[in-house]
Every structure is written in structure tokens, then in C-alpha cells.
């Protein structure tokens, strides 16, 4: 009954934030790639908040860019406001966040997809995966088109058995009333891939013309031009503000009185929701001593009146949502354009995946994004990128790419997911990274561009520019190391002007820069560089010199960690054969099947003695192999 619709190297199901990066990356690596989506008008759609970036997440966007992904470039062209967060803190935790123009983001991303070589974009609902002998062969759509490929990436987000809930109303649906996919979820389960039910939610959108902004506080963007992508050269200068208001005792009373009507509390919802993204009813129940909660009013774009009410995510009935808002300053007369809702969906238990995001069960089948139990556009995009890179690798027999925890937040996230799994929708936080100081917003290109170039997602031209930047940084650091500043009048005056204590004797320029109050600019005035340096180069020199001690400590730790990361565990290892492993450790190792001893040591339930025993066992195998030759 099906017809042969063609052969590809990689098929991507879904064109959300994971799907688009997966398709683009695979195509860039030279794979003939097909991208299937339910609705071509909604590629890279943002079903929840209209923003991209923030702590950790913003760094992920930069990492995606350094590996040749699209998210950074597209948001640079389509934001309505951008800010650098945590500027008063250290360099490790600074992060960009942009408010997105949602419709424009879709339009721009669609243009990027359409202009990508090797990438075919097509509307269609996948009904079935073609699997033979635990290997993926292709997919069949509901219109009976059979597409064949050795690798398939499933990026269906919250669409699998999605169910939207508002008060006592509940219906099968993907986000924003899109069609949901039931057969795919059933088939994955039949194939033996473990699934779990998660929940998330979104607040109402209201009409901007019905908001009384005079009762709220303005949250402007920044004058300073900012950008995610290292390739961006044009900046958006006319920024649109967000607005801040608060809930109050009255709002909380309405919510408390109607708690029984909330789908979250009436027992209608079974899925586990994220703690970091609670509904307003959750906040009021769990933190009932708080007199007020913040509400940010965020425009959804330049050419729309819709405003996202951040802070009021809820599954209460629509009329309660209305009553609730009537108590909030500025929102008294606000008209709801779309009601808030909760959504439940099936997701894959991520410990069933290899660190390449290929499923352990079915060869060539990859999953990426919210389907893997994460939440957030950036988390999805990061996984999509990696799945695309690795699916292309498998199809074309190229090098696979697994980023480690010391290299990137993407590596931290994927390692967390496939090693520890997650009990709730997973969000990246800076505290999840043990080497936060190394995973900075400002050095994503230094960490990853080289890799991107090697795997073919970064162009030669961009790579040349990167090498030049790197060279300038190293040379300037070296130069400052050799410059001796004497306590001349000029030097003392400059130090005094920065609020420092005068020099007693001559010092190296780098030592002076290490003083807390000292800035690169000041030093550069005292001893100017012969070549003109970009702000980015100067920033790198300042950070690398200032934090030398801490960076060195981190590098030592990374060095120690790497030793365990490079001890690989043979794929055919039989944990039942290993004498002395504790039962819990044995069970968990059998499930996770870590690729390295380092990964094994992070599996919960595996203690240091088990790791020692594992090491001895592996070494024994090596000796046996050597002596057997």
C-alpha cells in the first residue's frame, strides 16, 4: 500500500528547535537529509516563552553557534530585546538573553532551512518507523509515503500522546492545538524503548492594548549591541521593553479557593512536572508565606499585540485565569487571547540512549530534544545538533562526536541525561557544570570552533578568522607577561584612578592586571599594543590573565578527570561476569552501559570500590588479550 518516496542518509522527524539543528548539521556534514514536520508554517515554533538564552542556556546557544548551528544567528536577526545577564558577577556566569519576535523567528529559520544544501523540507505526519532486526530502515507517513534511510532522528517534542488540560477540560493535542502523534509513541514502546510521562505548562497570552502599563515597571533592553553568533555583524538597535508587575494576597486567595479546579490538583494530571517551572498554583501551595510573585509581561513580537504573561503558568479553568488577572495591577482589564494550559506527554527515558543520542535498542534510531525528557528551546537545539552530527556520522561513516563535561554545557547535559537519567523535565543550570569557570559565554568559540571545523560544520573562512583571534589573544598575553611596569608617575596615577594602592616596585603587566580593581583598558593605556585588538580579544586577555590561578586549578582537575574518561569500557563487557561488584552497581551499569570508566563512576549507585573493581576487570581483559595474541 505504501509507495517508495525516496532514499536519504538521515531523516529528521519534527522541525522544532531540536529538529532544525539536527537537519542542518546532518546536511552540513554532507548527508542527504529529509526533514518531515506536521506544519511547515511552524518550524522552530516557540510554544512557551518568547525568549532565548539566559544563564547556562545562553552559553548553550553560543556553543551551538561555535559548532555551526543556527539558533544564535537566527535570534540575532529576530530579537526585540537583548541583555547580558550577571554582569556584576564573574565571567563564568555571564549570559545573554534575548526576547524573541516569535513569528519572525519562524520565518527566518524557515529561510535558513530552505537555503541549506542537501536538506529537503516536507510536510507530513510520520505514522510508523520501519525497523528490521533492531536496525532502522526508514519511515512511513500517513499518506503512505515510505522514505528509506539508515538513520532516523525523532524530535517530536511534546507531541507524543500529548494531552492539553485546562481545568476539567482535557483533549488530545500537541502544543497550540496541533495534532498529536499516538502511533509513534506506541511503536517506540513496542520496540522496547522505555517511556515516561512528563508534564509542563504555559501561561495565558493577553492583548497588549488591554494592559495598563502605567501600573507596571519598565524593563528596558540594553543600548550596547549584543550578539549570540560569532558571525553576526549587524545589530538590532530599536529594542522593545518588557514590563514587570506582581501578584498579591487577593490573587493568591482566588487561587487557593479554586485549587480543586486546577488540573494539577484535581488528579487529572499524572505526569511529573518540572520544579524549576512551577505553575502559579504550585508556587502558592509550596511557598505560601510569599506575599507576592513577579510577573513579567513579554511581547511576543513586533507585529503582534499578544503578550506572554510570564509567572502565571496555570491549568486552572479559563474563567479563574480571568478572575486571577483582575487582581493584578495593570492586568485588571486584560483580555485573554489564548488561555494558559498544562500539557502531558510521553518522553523517552534518556538512559536508554548512548551519548551519541542513538537509542541502544534500535541501531540508527536517534532521539533529541524534549522527547528525551528535557525542557527548553536551547536544551532541545543542543541535542538536535549533536544527534544530527552523529546520525550523519553513522550514515556516512564519519567521525562521531561526544563532548565531555569539561568542554561544554551541551556535554554536561547529554552526560547527565544518558548517565543519570532524570525524574523531571531536565533544565540546564550553571550549577550542573563542575567546571563552570571553563564553560564561559565568552570562550565558546575557543572551546568548540576547532571541533566544528574538523567535522565540517564550520567553514574554512570562519575557521581562519577564529585562528587569527586565537593568535592575537596568545600574543597579547605573552606581550603583557614580558612588559615590566615601573612605578612612574603615570603608572601610579593610573592605579590611583582605578582605586588601587600605588606600586612599591616594578611589576609585570600581567601581575598588575591580576589586581582586583585593574582593567585591561588601563594597562593597555600604559603599555599600548602595537596591533589594534578587538573588544573580544581584549576581554579574553583580561579574563585569562585575571583568573589564571582558578583556571589552572580547574585544568588540573580536568586533567585528572580525563584519565578516567579515556579508559574505555569494552562494548561487549558482561557485568554479570565481574566478581565482587555490588548488586545495585551491577544492575545500574547493565542499564546505562557506560562507555568509559569516568562515565561509570557518575552512574548513581556505583561507589568507588565498584569503580576499582571495574578497572581491575578491564585491565584483566587487556592482559588476557595481550597474552592471547
Amino acid at each position, binding site marked *: 500500500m505504501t509507495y517508495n518516496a525516496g532514499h536519504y542518509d538521515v531523516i529528521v522527524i519534527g522541525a522544532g528547535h531540536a529538529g532544525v539543528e539536527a537537519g542542518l548539521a546532518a546536511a552540513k556534514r554532507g548527508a542527504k537529509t529529509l526533514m518531515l514536520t506536521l506544519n511547515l508554517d511552524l518550524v522552530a515554533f516557540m510554544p512557551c516563552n518568547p525568549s532565548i538564552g539566559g544563564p547556562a542556556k545562553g552559553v548553550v546557544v553560543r556553543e551551538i553557534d561555535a559548532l555551526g548551528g543556527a539558533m544564535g544567528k537566527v535570534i540575532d536577526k529576530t530579537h526585540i530585546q537583548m541583555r547580558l545577564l550577571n554582569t556584576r*558577577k564573574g565571567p563564568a556566569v555571564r549570559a545573554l538573553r534575548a526576547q524573541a519576535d516569535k513569528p519572525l523567528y519562524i520565518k527566518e529559520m524557515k529561510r535558513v532551512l530552505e537555503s541549506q544544501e542537501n536538506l529537503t523540507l516536507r510536510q507530513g505526519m510520520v505514522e510508523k518507523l520501519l525497523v528490521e532486526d533492531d536496525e532502522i530502515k526508514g519511515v512511513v507517513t500517513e499518506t503512505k509515503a515510505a522514505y528509506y534511510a539508515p538513520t532516523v532522528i525523532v524530535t517530536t517534542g511534546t507531541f507524543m500522546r500529548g494531552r492539553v488540560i485546562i481545568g476539567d477540560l482535557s483533549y488530545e493535542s500537541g502544543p497550540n492545538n496541533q495534532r498529536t502523534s499516538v502511533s509513534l509513541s506506541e511503536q517506540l514502546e513496542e520496540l522496547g524503548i522505555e517511556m515516561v510521562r512528563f508534564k509542563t505548562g504555559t501561561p495565558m497570552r493577553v492583548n497588549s492594548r488591554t494592559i495598563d502599563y502605567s501600573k507596571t515597571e519598565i524593563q528596558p533592553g540594553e543600548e550596547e549591541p549584543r550578539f549570540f553568533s560569532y558571525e553576526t555583524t549587524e545589530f538590532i538597535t530599536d529594542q522593545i521593553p518588557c514590563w514587570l508587575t506582581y501578584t498579591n494576597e487577593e490573587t493568591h486567595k482566588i487561587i487557593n479557593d479554586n485549587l480543586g479546579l486546577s488540573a494539577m490538583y484535581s488528579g487529572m494530571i499524572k505526569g511529573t512536572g518540572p520544579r*524549576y517551572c512551577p505553575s502559579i498554583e504550585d*508556587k502558592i501551595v509550596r511557598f505560601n508565606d510569599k506575599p507576592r510573585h513577579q510577573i513579567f509581561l513579554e511581547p511576543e513580537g513586533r507585529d503582534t499585540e499578544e503578550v506572554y504573561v510570564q509567572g502565571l503558568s496555570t491549568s486552572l479553568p479559563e474563567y479563574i485565569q480571568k478572575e486571577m488577572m483582575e487582581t493584578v495591577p495593570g492586568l485588571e482589564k486584560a483580555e485573554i487571547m489564548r488561555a494558559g494550559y498544562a500539557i502531558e506527554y510521553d518522553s523517552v527515558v534518556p538512559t536508554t540512549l548512548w551519548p551519541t543520542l542513538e537509542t541502544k535498542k534500535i541501531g540508527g534510531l536517534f532521539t533529541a530534544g524534549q522527547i528525551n525528557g528535557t525542557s527548553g528551546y536551547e536544551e532541545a537545539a543542543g541535542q538536535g545538533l549533536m544527534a544530527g552530527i552523529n546520525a550523519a556520522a553513522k550514515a556516512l561513516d564519519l567521525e562521531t562526536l561526544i563532548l565531555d563535561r569539561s568542554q561544554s554545557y551541551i556535554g554536561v547535559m547529554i552526560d547527565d541525561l544518558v548517565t543519570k537519567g532524570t525524574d523531571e523535565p531536565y533544565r540546564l*543550570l550553571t*550549577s*550542573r557544570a*563542575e567546571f563552570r569557570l571553563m564553560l564561559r559565554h565568552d570562550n565558546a568559540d575557543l572551546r568548540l570552533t576547532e571541533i566544528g571545523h574538523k567535522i565540517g560544520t564550520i567553514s574554512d573562512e570562519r575557521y581562519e578568522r577564529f585562528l587569527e583571534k586565537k593568535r592575537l589573544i596568545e600574543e597579547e598575553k605573552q606581550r603583557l607577561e614580558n612588559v615590566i611596569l615601573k612605578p612612574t608617575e603615570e603608572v601610579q596615577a593610573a592605579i590611583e584612578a582605578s582605586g588601587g594602592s600605588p606600586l612599591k616596585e616594578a611589576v609585570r603587566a600581567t601581575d598588575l592586571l591580576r589586581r582586583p580593581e585593574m582593567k585591561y583598558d588601563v594597562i593597555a593605556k600604559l603599555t599600548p599594543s602595537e596591533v589594534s585588538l578587538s573588544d573580544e580579544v581584549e576581554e579574553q586577555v583580561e579574563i585569562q590573565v585575571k583568573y589564571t590561578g582558578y583556571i589552572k586549578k580547574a585544568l588540573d582537575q580536568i586533567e585528572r578527570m580525563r584519565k578516567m574518561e579515556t579508559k574505555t569500557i569494552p562494548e561487549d563487557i558482561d557485568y554479570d561476569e565481574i566478581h565482587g561488584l555490588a548488586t545495585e552497581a551491577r544492575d545500574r551499569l547493565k542499564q546505562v552501559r557506560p562507555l568509559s570508566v569516568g562515565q561509570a563512576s557518575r552512574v548513581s549507585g556505583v561507589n568507588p570500590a565498584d569503580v*576499582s573493581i571495574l578497572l581491575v576487570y578491564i585491565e584483566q581483559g587487556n592482559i*588476557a588479550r595481550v597474552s592471547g595474541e
Partner: protein
Amino acid sequence: MEMDTITAISTPMGEGAIAIVRLSGPEAVSIADSLFRGKDLNQVETHTMHYGKLIDPETGDIAEEVMVSVMRAPKTFTREDVVEINCHGGLVSVNRVLEIALANGARLAEPGEFTKRAFMNGRIDLSQAEAVMDLIRAKTDRAMNVALKQMDGRLSHLIQDLRQKLLETLAHVEVNIDYPEYDDVEEMSNEMMREKTREVLQEVEQLLETARQGKILREGLGTAIIGRPNVGKSSLMNALVHENKAIVTEVPGTTRDVIEEYVNVRGVPLRLIDTAGIRETEDIVERIGVERSRQVLQEADLILLVLNYGDELTEEDKKLFEAVNDLNIIVIVNKMDLDPKLDLEEVKRLAGDHPVISTALIREEGIDQLENAIADTFFEGDLDAGDMTYVSNVRHVQLLKQAKQALEDAQNGMDMDVPIDVVQIDVTRTWELLGEIIGDAVHESLIDQLFSQFCLGK
């Protein structure tokens, strides 16, 4: 093989005549050499043994007389460079040697780690692999049991409290970072962080101080008996020794010939200093000279100052009081059987807060009271040794020292105005180190804390 250098006591714990501390790894020889005064160990032939002295790097003092064997890779047990330090048996010496090795860059070996290295380096053949795994399992389990037993409940509670305090602080910083515009959490300032780390540092220092007490329990409370001639010092010592089982050991060689006697008083081991001197001459000062005696007194943990009830208080007595006034002393008014000539009020005034015990040693009177007073001094009024929170495990002490270092690094960072999220690296390290003591260093708990402490989200 690229590995660090490990060390452990490799002879059974106890009162053997000789104990061995073993080092293995690339830096075994250089570490041993750095704390050894004698031949240059870096230059000596492999598989040779050398006499010399061990230096305590903290004080620069000579700590022990030792024999050191140097065995270079590959013909060693672990196939790495191995150094064995043979020292005087007994817990005092051997622990001290171990601690010095640790302070000089060696890491305390995990249970079974020497054997594991021997195996990993191909020294033990394939058929023995399972035995090695068994050994690691058994040793780890036993070490864990021992560690758990050694750690009394209160210590583990205290550590948990400290960790909780740190965790709340860490979560607070994290929330500032991950939710920058979240306004009902106060911004964690360097001042707040400094306050928190200071609190924890104090507690850690106190724990390290109790580690010293734990050490005293193992090594004995250095005790000196002083007094004018003929006040009954040797009677006192004989009384203590006869009442209790004495162990006499001879420590030859170092800088002086000292005979130490150990007696166990109500669970407090006393190490009686220079008892030989007292026995022979009846007077420590007379025997070893004023300078030396002052030094001995300063090293003593406890001083028993003996007075004669049958004599008036002399200038000499008063000088003795002055010499030891800021030390830990018990005043013993002996010869209560004689006619009173001593002004007891005056003695009490001079003694200040120190206990004054009356005895008639010749009639064996007052010994009980004295022993109670000794026990009181040590336990600070708390007689039940099992009721104390003290750290005795070498591994725990190491971890506490590292935690202390990390806290000091954090404070230095704050002094240098380093941003709080960078200072946090050292605070997090402290939290992890304390976690290692109680066998709990799971990173997830920070995130749990974050979400239970603060109301966050969109």
C-alpha cells in the same frame, strides 16, 4: 603508568617493635627524601636501606629516627618506585610518620590500593585477579565499617549540619546566578559569604582541635611531675604506676635519652615524661637543667605540681607556679598526714582555676580524687569518653585539613574581591570534602536544595 603517589601504614596497628609506612608511586623517593635527613635518597642504589632522621616539615624538628628502604621500579611489589619507612612501633610514631608523608604530597591509599596497583602494573598474574577484586571489596567494606565505628554519631551530625549550612549558601548563590532578575532573594554578597565561611571554618578548626584530643587518646597525655625535692614526686609516680598497668618503652638515640612510661588513668593514657630523671634525682629541673626543663614543661599536656603540706610555701614553689601558670596543671598538696604548715588559702589563690587535690600518698590516700581530676581535665568535666565528638581517623583529619584549606582559599578570594561565583568554587570544594568524610558527595542535592529553598520559575 601515570599515577599519583600513595602511602599507608603497612604493618598491623598495635604495639609492635617496628612499624612500616609504605609509599608507592612516581614521587615515592622524592617525597621520602624531602622529609629525610641522612643520605640523598634520590642518589642511593635501588634496594638499599638507610639510617636517618625524619623531619617534621611544619616545625623543622626531628620527628623520628628511621630506617628507610628505597626500591625502584620495576622490581617492587607494585612495580612502581616504593619506599618503606621503618620507624619505632607504636601508634605515636607510626601515625606521625604517616602524617608527615601525607603533608609532603603523598595521598592516603584507598583500601587494597597497593595490591590493585600491583595488579594494574602486571605484577600479579591473571589468575589472581579475582582475589584482588575480593580483597578490594572486603577491605573497602571493612574500612567503611571501621570508619563508621570510629566516627561517632555526633560527628556525623555535626558534619551534616555544616554541609547543610554550606548547601544553603551555595543554593543562594546559584539562585542569584540562574535567576538574575528574581527579586525576592537577597543578593548574596561577599560579606554574607564571608560570615558563612567564617562560621564553618571555626567549626572545622574546632574539629581539628578535637582530632588532637583523639590523638591524645591514642598517644597518651604527655605528663610531667614537678616540685621541690622531697615533696613526694616519686611516691606520686609510683602510686600512679602501681595502681595502673605501666608500659615502659625506651626511645634511644634522638637528642636525649628519655624513658617514657605509659599509665592508663580512667581511660586517659598518661605518658609520664622523664620519669627516669625523677626516679634518679627526685627532680626534673635538677636533672636536665632549667632550659631543658622549661622546654619539657611546654611540651607537656598536663603538669602535676606537687607541694608539701608539712612545709611552708617557699619562693621556689611560687616560681614553679609562675612557670606553669598558663599550662594545664593539677596542684597536689601531698603529705596531708603531717602537721599543717602550708597556707592552703594561699595555694588555692595561686592555683586559680586549676584543681587542687590533697593526698597522703604514703597512706595511699587521695589517689582516687587525683585520678578523677586527671580524667576531668581531659574530658573537661565529661567523664564518659564515648560521649565526646572527636575525630580520630587519619583520613578524616586529612579531609578536614583540606576543607580548612579550601575555606581559607575562599576567604583569600573574597579579600581579593574575586567575584562570588568564583569564590564559590572553593566553597563547593569544602562541601564535597566534608561529604567525603561521611561518604556522601552527591551533586544532585544542590539542585534539590535550590528548588526547595526558593520559589522559582516562569
